[in-house]
């Protein structure tokens, strides 16, 4: 059977991995970041920056690639205090957008999460699996997005094509 979906491999984003107590991170860089999300696996947005709360004392900041250098200049990863960690990881993840009427069906093949809109609410983001590979999965208006390590990107394209045809 074939599915009515649209798959788009996204452009690379600026990504920073933030770890440590939120108070310490906010003290170091809070004025440059969106408000820290309070609920696990949720995100906050300010300007074009998204801050996702993806583990205990663990956040990922995502922004357009054009902001990468200026963000690095403001977050100053190399000189941050020892109780926090800020690492530029823009090159490590590749993002896929899955949209269209059958997007939930195809995501249900790939991912063990309960993706029903009443459980995996719009705006939620979490680490899970896609085709057995660790993936950062999010639900947005009209579809889903997930990110896997760059090196798995071409394989995921192949898996998706097999799943939808």
């Amino acid at each position, binding site marked *: 059977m074939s599915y009515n979906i649209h798959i788009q491999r996204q452009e690379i984003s600026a990504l920073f991995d933030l770890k440590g107590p939120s108070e310490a991170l906010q003290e170091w860089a809070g004025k440059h970041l969106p408000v820290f999300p309070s609920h*696990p*696996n949720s995100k906050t947005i300010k300007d074009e920056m998204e801050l996702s709360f993806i*583990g*205990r004392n663990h956040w990922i900041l995502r922004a357009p690639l054009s902001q990468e250098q200026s963000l690095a200049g403001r977050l100053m990863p190399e000189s941050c205090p020892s109780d926090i960690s800020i690492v530029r990881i823009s090159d490590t993840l590749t993002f896929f957008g899955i949209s269209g009427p059958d997007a939930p069906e195809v995501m249900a093949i790939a991912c063990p*999460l309960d993706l029903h809109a009443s459980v995996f609410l719009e705006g939620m983001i979490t680490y*899970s699996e896609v085709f057995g590979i660790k993936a950062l999965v999010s639900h947005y208006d009209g579809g889903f997005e997930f990110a896997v390590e760059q090196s798995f990107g071409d394989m995921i394209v192949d898996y998706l094509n097999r799943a939808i045809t």
Partner: protein
Amino acid sequence: MMLIHCPFCGKRSESEFIYGGPVGADRPNPDAVSDAQWVEYLTVTPNPLGPVQEKWWHARGCGEWLTIWRDTRTHDIVEAPENAQ
């Protein structure tokens, strides 16, 4: 498939987790126990017929380590026994 409750993420598929072994006894002071007790601590892991406390790692999730009680007769995740520590 089991659904395991992660304290950060909530209920998730077993496939997102890696088994970390049964929860063993606390490490005794090797100078304060007999050789037999020390060998018992090092080599004997809990393997009851019934509820056992296990460590699991939400590796393909948020990264949290957690413990659950699982009944080895039914594979069900159960409440901690009343006499559990």
